């Protein structure tokens, strides 16, 4: 006969295991839950009132007009695309360059320091970035470019670049680290310098991982809310240049959800934009995963 404590433990084990299993699939439950509840709020307007073609192709966003309501997100999507594109033009070369430096060129001690700084940079809250855009960058842009207002594509793009660089560096560095050392050794044995090792051996071998790093940087930039809300100037228009103010998809939700009456058409459209953002994130992450999986199978 086992002591009571042991018998209790034996009985508890299946229960504990069940709880652990439930927690294990919690991430899946939450991802579906998020999609379900966000879509649920917007569903009735999505199926009855919304003209999907107009929603996706019209740049006219007049949600609170009395006589002429228009729900076209093209201008907002263009706002998101413009700041993301600018951010990536800056963040991808610098992020991958920094990843190469950290992974291949610098001493272990310096590497530690760089990684710590990158981690701290990644920790800066987005509202603080937004505040920096609103104050420091705003003044800088007005002074340097003689622009009437410094809250524009350039400002948002620079802030987003700084925000997405850490993720590109850390995932890019992982991708470079995943290249077997035998590649480096073989190249060095042939007399290659470090630059040649990087350029001829590592970049081709790590290109999928670097692509995944870029994609995740894009996802970060598209999904960012507070920083672009504060730094891009709140003008719903198709951007024509770097110094035009724009508004992104995320910023629109954050700015208008508070004033849209619950379950009004406007309120529901904001949730449909949420579904759109969810889907973009889902596709980007799925592709990044497939790309990385591709490397592992080689």
């Amino acid at each position, binding site marked *: 006969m086992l002591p009571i404590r042991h018998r209790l433990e034996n009985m508890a084990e299946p229960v504990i295991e069940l709880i652990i299993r439930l927690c294990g699939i919690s991430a899946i439950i939450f991802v579906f839950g998020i999609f379900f509840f966000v879509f649920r709020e917007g569903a009735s307007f999505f199926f009855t009132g919304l003209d999907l073609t107009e929603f996706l192709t019209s740049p006219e966003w007049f949600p609170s007009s009395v006589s002429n309501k228009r729900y076209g997100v093209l201008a907002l999507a263009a706002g998101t695309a413009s700041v993301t594109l600018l951010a990536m033009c800056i963040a991808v070369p610098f992020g991958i360059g920094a990843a190469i430096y950290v992974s291949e060129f610098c001493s272990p001690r310096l590497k530690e320091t760089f990684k710590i700084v990158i981690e701290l940079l990644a920790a800066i809250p987005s*509202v603080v970035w937004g505040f*920096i855009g609103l104050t420091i960058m705003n003044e800088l842009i007005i002074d340097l470019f003689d622009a009437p207002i410094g809250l524009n594509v350039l400002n948002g793009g620079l802030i987003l670049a700084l925000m997405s660089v850490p993720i590109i560096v850390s995932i890019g560095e992982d991708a470079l680290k995943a290249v077997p050392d035998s590649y480096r050794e073989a190249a060095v044995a042939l007399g290659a310098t470090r630059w040649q090792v990087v350029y001829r051996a590592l970049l081709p071998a790590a290109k999928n991982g670097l692509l995944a790093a870029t994609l995740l940087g894009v996802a970060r930039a598209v999904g960012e809310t507070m920083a672009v809300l504060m730094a891009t100037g709140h003008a719903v228009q198709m951007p024509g240049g770097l110094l035009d103010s724009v508004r992104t998809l995320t910023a629109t939700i954050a700015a208008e959800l508070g004033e849209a009456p619950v379950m009004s058409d406007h309120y529901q459209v904001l949730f449909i934009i949420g579904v759109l953002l969810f889907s973009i994130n889902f596709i980007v992450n799925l592709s990044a995963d497939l790309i990385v999986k591709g490397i592992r199978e080689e």
Partner: protein
Amino acid sequence: MTETSHHQGTFTETKPGRNKRITEHIAGTIFFLMALLMIAPLLMIVGYLLYKAAPVLSIDFLISNPIRGMREGGIWAPFLGTIYLVGISLLISTPVGVLAAVYLNEYARESWYTRIINLAVVNLAGIPSIVHALFGLGAFVLFAGIGRSILAASLTLAIMTLPVIIASTKEALRAVPTAFREACWNVGATRWQTIRGIVLPNSFSGILTGIILQVSRAAGETAPIMFTGAVFYKAIPEGDLFAYGLLEQCMALSMHLYTISTQVPNVPEAVPYGTAVVLLGTVLLVNSTAIILRIYMRSRKRW
């Protein structure tokens, strides 16, 4: 590899060799500058914010309430609100996240099933914060009927920070050698006994690092709490640590920074800068603790 360039000097250098050496130097310098350009902003930002915030920064600023339409006074109410939100979200997400990582690392085998779970974790981490806000509003505030409250906001934050704790716990668990588990199984311990007695204690500091990182993430978020529980202004008694109730709304530091820098006119410049410094300082301090803990841990690792 640094030796090669020194040795080259002792040979007569050929032209291609010289070119090679020069390209190498240029490449090294450029990559160094790129890496440096990422560090510079952190130092510049922190320095500039501190400089601008200097006039208001004091203990008084931290422990007194905002007054005169938030144009003067301190940040006690939002600061306490942030502590509430972070603390409660932590209580919810830590057990779920740790157990999820236990499942992924200790129970599940590599299969399409775990791959889907991992993909879900990555996806959850990438979902835009404003979509989390919509979810929190739709699910907790309206559907579950909790209303805009600290509880609803903390639940939203908890789900948002879950991937952080899962990822870092998984890493900590993976660092425990398989031999430890095998030794334990061999003396007749069940799987859960092994986890409780051997795996969790040996990965405790790693898990703690993850929890700390989660604190920093939760403290800085604004969008998810904007529509679920954070409020523009709320008067609470100064110095009372239990001033907020679970089903009340609260102020939060990140939301406060947003409102005083965009919604309130004529705020003296130093006040938002001071708020930004406190928020940034808290987050960076918390992160540094995690980093120091990690370095300390590595230095006394026994295997």
